[in-house]
């Protein structure tokens, strides 16, 4: 059993030049069978395993990962957390996640560096402002904190923002969610891994699923690059590669995979103490605790698994950020990456049972999955443990693509897709 972190352990290990820390989680070899196997050791998959163990008493769990832990989209996102979605179904799901974020560092005994620095969504036209007012009112009716600010108020909160009336896309105002913010994406994966490992969850890296064993309409095991693993309950949380997994089970998905690029600048002194997003110029930025600007924009328009994206998207992103913050025009970018996001027709996730008994999918988070990490794992664990939807993910069933009960969140998704 690993010891809890405490100020005393930090102090004493600090005196010894930080030598002698235990590994944060156990590296495990695959056992022949498990009660539940989670495919994908990203934030959502690890959170699912953690809540399965903690809330539902399932102990014999494996999380298998084709690469390394937290090396997929968890390591390639822009770390923004918010819950200001328009429709009740989405707003309640993301608010559930935000409430878990607020206690996550204590719950996991791991500092996920959750910083509630607020999130602004800018409006540049009268229609933008009407949409913002509608969404803020909807948020308030759902008990979610949100405000409408005018241009002068936005300028007073973000002095470096260009609010000139002569701008090509002048800032008319913004919605503001004070409880939104950012978290340290790697720490989220590591914290969930450590906490799950404490409950005995096996975390198996470099283990790619190559096939699914299905008998009489029920999943009985997985073929992997490290042998056959038997399990009658499998949860797939593989982000951009969900279609690849679904195909192994003979299931069609309403998903298209696209690269989503992001950028991190050189470190600089603090200039931006909040998160700024704009749907109209189509970019968003925040500043990390290290001083880097973390910048993102839209997806590549065609489907692709290339994990790099197209160069002209870089130009588009830079143009959007310089429109908002002209002073960033001389900032150098240190790195760029493209993560593969699985987009759905209604910009909402799929958390669902499938026609194969015992096989569950949690996917389709598109461009905004990071913010949902603890909530997604929490409700998915419930769905797997009880073989039925949690009240908060009932609306996110695959069935909505035949009943027509879509949840159109393109406006609140933040990035067009």
């Amino acid at each position: 059993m690993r010891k809890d972190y405490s100020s005393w352990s930090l102090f004493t290990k600090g005196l010894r030049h930080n030598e002698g820390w235990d590994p944060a989680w156990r590296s495990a070899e695959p056992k022949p069978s498990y009660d539940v196997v989670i495919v994908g050791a990203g934030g959502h998959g690890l959170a699912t395993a953690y809540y399965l163990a903690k809330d539902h008493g399932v102990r014999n769990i494996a999380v298998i990962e084709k690469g390394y832990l937290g090396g997929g989209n968890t390591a390639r996102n822009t770390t923004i957390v918010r819950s200001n979605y328009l429709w009740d179904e989405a707003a309640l799901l993301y608010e559930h996640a935000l409430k878990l974020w607020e206690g996550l560092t204590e719950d996991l005994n791991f500092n996920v560096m959750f910083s509630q620095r607020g999130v602004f969504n800018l409006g540049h036209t009268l229609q933008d402002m009407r949409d913002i007012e509608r969404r803020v009112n909807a948020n308030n009716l759902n008990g979610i904190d949100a405000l409408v600010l005018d241009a002068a108020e936005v300028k007073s909160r973000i002095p470096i923002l260009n609010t000139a009336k002569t701008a090509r896309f002048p800032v008319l105002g913004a919605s503001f969610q004070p409880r939104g913010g950012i978290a340290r994406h790697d720490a989220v994966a590591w914290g969930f891994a450590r906490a799950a490992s404490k409950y005995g969850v096996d975390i198996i890296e470099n283990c790619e699923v190559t096939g699914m064993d299905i008998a009489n309409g029920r999943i009985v095991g997985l073929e992997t690059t490290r042998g056959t693993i038997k399990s009658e309950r499998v949860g797939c949380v593989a982000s951009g590669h969900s279609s690849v997994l679904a195909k192994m089970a003979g299931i069609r998905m309403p998903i298209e995979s696209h690269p989503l690029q992001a950028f991190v600048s050189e470190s600089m002194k603090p200039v931006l103490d909040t998160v700024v997003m704009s749907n109209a110029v189509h970019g968003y930025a925040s500043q990390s605790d290290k001083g880097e600007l973390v910048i993102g924009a839209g997806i590549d328009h065609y489907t692709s698994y290339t994990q790099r994206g197209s160069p002209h998207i870089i130009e588009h992103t830079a143009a959007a950020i310089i429109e908002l913050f002209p002073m960033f025009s001389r900032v150098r970018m240190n790195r760029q990456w493209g993560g593969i996001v699985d987009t759905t027709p209604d910009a909402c996730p799929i958390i669902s049972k499938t026609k194969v008994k015992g096989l569950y999918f949690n996917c389709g988070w598109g461009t905004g999955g990071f913010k949902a990490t603890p909530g997604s794992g929490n409700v998915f664990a419930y769905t797997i443990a009880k073989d039925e939807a949690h009240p908060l993910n009932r609306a996110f069933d695959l069935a909505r693509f035949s009943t027509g009960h879509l949840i159109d969140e393109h406006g609140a998704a933040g990035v067009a897709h």
Partner: protein
Amino acid sequence: MFVLFCPHCGEKREEEEFGYGGEAFIPRPSKPETLDDDAWGDYLFMRKNPKGWHWEMWSHNTGCRKFFVVKRNTATNAIAGSWTLSDGRKAYDAEGGAT
């Protein structure tokens, strides 16, 4: 960045000239009134989304504005060829409609 060949204009141009039109050759149901909700939902929303070779439509937005068919590998962006819709259909069928 990749370069696409427009079979209508007979020219190779940069991808930014083109618009992506999604998966090619999704058969429109001939008798929609006989479909159940699952089959109709499948037609509207379900996609192959393969990691590998993909038959897809593109339109030459800043050129002739016509649609054509491309076979592209989604894992590498390698392009096997472009065809007009009717020629592409023949090549697609010759492969057995596989992606």
